[in-house]
């Protein structure tokens, strides 16, 4: 059994419009899945976050198969052999889909059928050479491909020769060529553009969601991008971004800037300049609801390894000791952004933390309830935000 072919049938080269349609479908599927995932993450009401993880896996599988399909399509368009008759007139070589391996099927074990525009090779046994060129057998299977995917003239020759070499009961008949102007083909360019446009719009929806509508106070617009752990209704796990609205039930937070600095005692500190606006007049912001930590398992550990902001801090700037102005401190009333003075319900303040591990990724946290559980009271503010940042990337005040 040698790999010598006759009446070879090659794959037809894919034309440009087919490739364009393929790319359009890819963009559409990616956009659709992304938008669905975003919506599902918003709706999901599971502390465990398993649902969003499953969705993430589904997205990865979809993307993988789409890319694989396109790659296969590209590979097959490189004029590869689809099938051929063996040079000793005893069987057929077929390009088997999964590993693009040529398998040999003797005529006696083969049945060829044309149905619904597909050519199907159904076999009882097939033989092939493995990577070490050793002969192996595969039993009972079939291979299918579109009639239009192969060269029609070569197919016609193949059918003629196949019919000559096989008995009357195995003979096959090449179906009439399908009408060139089917509805889909006729409107294919428009169909492709439509898919591409819809896909782009859906992906834009996702980008908008990730952008959290900076400037918008709408709850539905806040960030749901997951940095690898989990994102739930009660806990948002994000990368810290400046000038972006982090919305909770009671407040909108905007972290305007972040700095590194040293105190006179040579302790490293991080300073966040934060603007808080209260949504209701009597909502009170507690300093103890803010934390910093390097603990990656903050959600399961709770705040055991996290610490609260520092009180009135003096830092070294230009060799002089200088106070951090408008710092969030322990004093009563200080943290009330809905203050009664007329005209505004927001205040800008500096929240200062001791930076115990400046070389590691740190997490800036706002949480009005215990992170290792769910909010107990309906009045507890939610969601909590766990915002990852790299202290080394912050501007240093010195």
């Amino acid at each position, binding site marked *: 059994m040698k790999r010598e072919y006759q009446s070879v049938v090659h794959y037809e080269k894919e034309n440009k419009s087919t490739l364009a349609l393929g790319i359009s479908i890819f963009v559409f599927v990616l956009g659709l899945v992304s938008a669905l995932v975003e919506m599902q993450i918003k709706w999901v009401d599971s502390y465990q976050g398993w649902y969003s993880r499953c969705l993430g896996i589904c997205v990865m599988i979809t993307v993988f198969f789409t890319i694989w399909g396109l790659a296969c399509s590209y590979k097959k368009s490189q004029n590869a052999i689809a099938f051929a008759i063996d040079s000793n007139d005893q069987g057929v070589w077929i390009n088997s889909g999964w590993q693009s391996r040529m398998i040999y099927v003797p005529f006696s074990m083969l049945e060829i059928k044309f149905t619904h525009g597909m050519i199907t090779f159904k076999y009882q046994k097939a033989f092939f050479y493995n990577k070490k060129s050793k002969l192996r057998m595969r039993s009972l299977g079939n291979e299918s491909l579109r009639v239009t995917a192969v060269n029609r003239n070569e197919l016609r020759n193949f059918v003629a020769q196949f019919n000559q070499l096989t008995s009357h009961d195995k003979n096959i008949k090449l179906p009439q060529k399908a009408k060139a102007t089917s509805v889909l083909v006729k409107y294919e360019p428009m169909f492709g553009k439509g898919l591409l446009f819809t896909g782009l719009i859906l992906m*834009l929806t996702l980008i908008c969601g990730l952008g959290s509508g900076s400037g918008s106070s709408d709850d539905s617009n806040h960030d749901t991008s997951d940095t690898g752990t989990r994102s739930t209704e009660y806990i948002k796990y994000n990368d810290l971004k400046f000038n972006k609205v982090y919305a909770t039930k009671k407040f909108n937070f905007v972290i305007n*800037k972040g700095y590194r600095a040293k105190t006179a005692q040579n302790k490293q500190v991080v300073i966040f300049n934060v603007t808080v606006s209260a949504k209701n007049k009597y909502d009170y912001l507690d300093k103890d609801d803010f934390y910093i930590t390097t603990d990656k398992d903050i959600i399961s550990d709770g705040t055991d390894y996290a610490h609260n902001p520092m009180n*009135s801090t003096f830092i070294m700037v230009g060799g002089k000791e200088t*106070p951090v102005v*408008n710092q969030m*401190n322990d004093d009563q*009333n200080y943290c009330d*952004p809905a203050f009664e003075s007329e005209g505004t319900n927001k205040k*800008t303040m500096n929240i200062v933390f001791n930076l115990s591990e400046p070389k590691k990724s740190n997490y800036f946290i706002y949480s009005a309830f215990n992170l290792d559980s769910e909010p107990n009271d309906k009045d507890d503010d939610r969601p909590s935000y766990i915002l990852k940042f790299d202290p080394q990337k912050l501007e240093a005040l010195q």
Partner: protein
Amino acid sequence: MKRICYLLSAVLMMFFSIGSIDATDVSSSQSQVNNNDIYAFHPLNKVKFGDESIEFKILGYQYLKDPLPSSNDHARILLVKCQINTDDLDSDEAKYAYVSNDFLKVYDNNSEATRINVEFSKKRLQRPPFNYVRDSLSHISENKTYEFDICSIVYPYDDIELKFAPNDGSNGEKIKIHQVKSSNGVVMDSQDVLANYGQEGK
């Protein structure tokens, strides 16, 4: 395709361009403390009339270096010296006249500062440097002047503002005692009157 690019660019630009702008109240009067005499008395002499013809006067304010209001080394007591004058009050009005300490409010970074009355014992407030710290004034007589001091806990280098509103209305006068000048919002610039607070004010 071009249209899609333009649409995408426009939407992205919108997201990146929106920022927050903090408006500053420019209508308030200014009477700022400066670095050289942070613990000195700063006269103000503001007068307003409340209900029942009672005259309220802010004589001035000063930060107290001692005593400290709490264990926090950087918190200070802001003592505002006020006077209540009843020259225009008639005897019938005097029967029902009552003054509480809310004719003056102190704000530290836009939040109302804690009153010292809560933190200190009454006995302590009767000893110097305190003289006339009160929660309220009742049994008022006509043709008299009462001293009425208000003490609050503040951080002098923050934005500190008084609101003088004897009628407890929203039209009270705002008096800025310290308005932070800062380019980064974190530390004072050299133009700030308290720029050297770290060396001299502590």
